[in-house]
């Protein structure tokens, strides 16, 4: 009977110890299998509700001998059951994160005043600053509790990203808050990162408040795809948002999985700066002399022409004078180097290493169209860009193009922001932009982070209306300073302890979350944490399937506060 009533009330235990710094300890009063690590629980104590996350379950006994000896074989069943019920137990470790006033008794004047404050949203969950009493009741969160903390689907910017493990209650993320700072999606290979990214991107595109630029290195977000594990068709963003998403191919005549892009991007030689080349130091194995050579090229030919001029210089070209003495061809690298005071060997080595760029088909002297401007216009007009790398999906192309474009686009946004903030006539507020970067560790590792525009964007948050959504399977390879700036982190299973450490950088309660992260169910469960979510929570991520699209594209009527409170039981 006792269990039955606990099932009805949802009570799973009571507080037996713990503290504000250490986690709370609760004695479980239902079978241990009823609760899983990561469960979202509510502690009712006095006039307050405490919201927390189960971070550990521990078996205990009043005396170790009750656990050591199998008393079940020595006593009648009923006696043994009673004995185990009182001497063997499971303790929950609860990481509390938020607390909220429960309010006075309904029907009183105080209640009416309090209720009005809730309706006005002046009473909201706040960070936990005290502890519940001993023996305070612990129960699993109900749908209303989840909605109170994480917001209600369909209301404002709240977008359902998954469901709680127990009860399957919807858990939402505030899309507007998500993009206010850079965010990250992490997880080892095959843990469902791409599907989760598709879900979030679909939400952002559907929301329509932010423009999205996706560097689609592996051509998986724009066009339709086939899931590698199930073999099922996976709709691409272009397919579902035909009018809103522009698919851009890299290089003239590019096709993406056999489909024609909306337009193609060619990069003008004049757009390439020496800094763009320096960012490829690792990929091209450039020497220490490279900056000197590049600076000489810039001084000699200017920002617009250095690449073109250098590209067309001859290598190993020599002429002979009347005396038969060999001298460098005036159009050669060596001749230019001698004239510019640069070591000819260093210049020729650089020329040789840049050959991969000189030969890149998407770098041309005069692009057929100003695709970069078109991309900026699209993003300005509320459209979204998926830049597919097509056949150019090697690291060099990805690093070079993504860096160059990001630098150019951010410059535009910075200029507009400055105009807007200084009150220039006609200057309008720039549209928020999210740049989606896959394999982020290649762009944001310790060596490159100080040079790339990406780390600048991550650091400056939303100052210039541009933020990043980085996707990576090796977060430990991303520079700490960048990781610590990420607002929201959504992470699937990670096996490497360094990666787990990196994802939890700068967060409270990371020790408790560490084990949880290593035991997430691959492809299903993700841990959502960081500034952008009210408290860490493990969720079963939303499936990216036909049902998802039906729900997303269907018009939904948000409920008002009174309806939400009704669900909460007020």
């Amino acid at each position: 009977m006792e269990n039955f009533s606990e099932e009805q009330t949802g009570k799973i235990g009571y507080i037996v110890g713990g503290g504000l710094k250490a986690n709370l300890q609760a004695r479980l009063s239902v079978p241990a299998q009823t609760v899983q690590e990561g469960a979202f629980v509510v502690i009712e104590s006095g006039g307050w509700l405490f919201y927390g996350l189960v971070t550990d379950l521990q078996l205990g006994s009043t005396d170790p001998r009750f656990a050591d000896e199998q008393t079940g074989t020595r006593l009648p069943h009923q006696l043994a059951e009673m004995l185990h019920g009182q001497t063997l137990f499971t303790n929950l470790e609860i990481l509390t994160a938020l607390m909220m006033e429960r309010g006075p008794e309904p029907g009183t004047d105080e209640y009416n005043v309090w209720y009005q404050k809730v309706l006005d949203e002046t009473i909201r969950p706040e960070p936990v600053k005290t502890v519940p009493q001993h023996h305070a009741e612990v129960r699993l969160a109900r749908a209303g509790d989840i909605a109170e903390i994480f917001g209600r689907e369909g209301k404002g910017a709240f977008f359902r990203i998954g469901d709680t493990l127990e009860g399957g209650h919807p858990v939402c993320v505030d899309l507007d808050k998500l993009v206010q700072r850079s965010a990250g999606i992490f997880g080892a290979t095959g843990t469902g990162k791409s599907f989760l990214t598709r879900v979030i991107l679909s939400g952002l595109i559907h929301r329509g408040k932010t423009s999205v630029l996706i560097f689609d290195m592996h051509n998986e977000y724009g066009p339709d795809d086939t899931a590698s594990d199930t073999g099922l068709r996976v709709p691409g963003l272009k397919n579902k948002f035909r009018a809103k998403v522009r698919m851009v191919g890299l290089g003239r005549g590019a096709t993406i999985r056999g489909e024609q892009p909306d337009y193609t991007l060619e990069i003008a030689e004049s757009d390439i700066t020496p800094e763009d080349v320096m960012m490829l130091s690792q990929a091209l194995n450039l020497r220490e002399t490279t900056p000197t050579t590049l600076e000489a090229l810039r001084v000699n030919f200017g920002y617009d022409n250095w690449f073109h001029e250098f590209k067309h210089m001859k290598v190993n070209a020599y002429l002979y004078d009347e005396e038969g003495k060999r001298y460098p061809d005036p159009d050669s690298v060596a001749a230019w180097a001698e004239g510019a005071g640069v070591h000819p060997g260093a210049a020729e080595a650089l020329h040789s290493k840049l050959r991969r760029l000189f030969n890149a088909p998407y770098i041309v002297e005069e692009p057929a169209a100003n695709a970069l401007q078109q991309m900026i216009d699209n993003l300005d007009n509320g459209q979204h860009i998926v830049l597919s790398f097509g056949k150019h999906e090697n690291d060099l192309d990805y690093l070079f193009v993504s860096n160059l474009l990001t630098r150019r686009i951010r410059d535009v946004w910075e200029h507009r922001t400055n105009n807007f903030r200084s009150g220039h006539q006609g200057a309008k507020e720039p549209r928020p932009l999210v740049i989606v970067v896959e394999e982020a560790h290649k762009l944001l590792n310790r060596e490159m982070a100080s040079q790339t525009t990406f780390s600048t964007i991550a650091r400056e948050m939303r100052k210039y209306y541009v933020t990043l959504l980085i996707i990576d399977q090796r977060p430990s390879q991303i520079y700490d300073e960048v990781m610590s700036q990420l607002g929201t982190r959504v992470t699937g299973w990670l096996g490497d302890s360094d990666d787990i450490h990196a994802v939890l950088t700068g967060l409270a309660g990371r020790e408790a979350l560490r084990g949880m992260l290593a035991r997430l169910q691959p492809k299903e469960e993700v841990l959502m944490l960081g500034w952008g979510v009210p408290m860490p929570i493990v969720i079963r991520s939303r499936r990216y399937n036909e049902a998802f699209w039906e729900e997303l594209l269907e018009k939904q009527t948000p409920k008002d506060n009174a309806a939400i409170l009704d669900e909460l039981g007020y």
Partner: protein
Amino acid sequence: MSAIAIGRLLRTGTSGFVIGCRVNQLDSPSFGSLVRVPLEPDYQVFGIIYDIHIEDDGLVRQLITAEDVPEEVLRDNRENRNVPVEIAVLALGYQQGEQIFHLLPPRPPLSLDAIYLSSPEEMIAFTSAGRFGYFRHILRDPSKPVDELLAAHLMTARTIHESAGNKSWYPEALQELIALLRDDYQRLMNVLRAAGEIG
């Protein structure tokens, strides 16, 4: 309700007392039985029998060593001997008016007070009052056969409660015992093993 007198008090104190009785009175009281000593019209003390023993005397010693003692002589010495059977009782509580307390009696009974076996109704009333507070008096003295005493008491009380339609008394009593003894593994296991004999 006809009360069965089983003897009179020999020695007494607030925590327990010893009854003396004749051998032919020994049919009724048994180890673990609940007894009561009415002292005033609205005040009576309850206790539980934890020991019954018979002291020897000189005549018994002679008879044991003698040969061919006639059966009637043996019976006469057994039934009419001067040394009484001694029944030791542990005080468990008292009744003041209608209220039952599982506390030691404020005043002990006096010598030669008559002592009675509790009726089933009295046993139900006493064991149902409060929340098994009288268990602590039984558990207090480890020199007594606590596990056996509890098993005998549980067996008797369970039968009476279940006859009256209350099947929850026994599991609740066990739960309380486990709660009281869970920090004492050995004693608890002894009690439970003894209770396990009841079935």
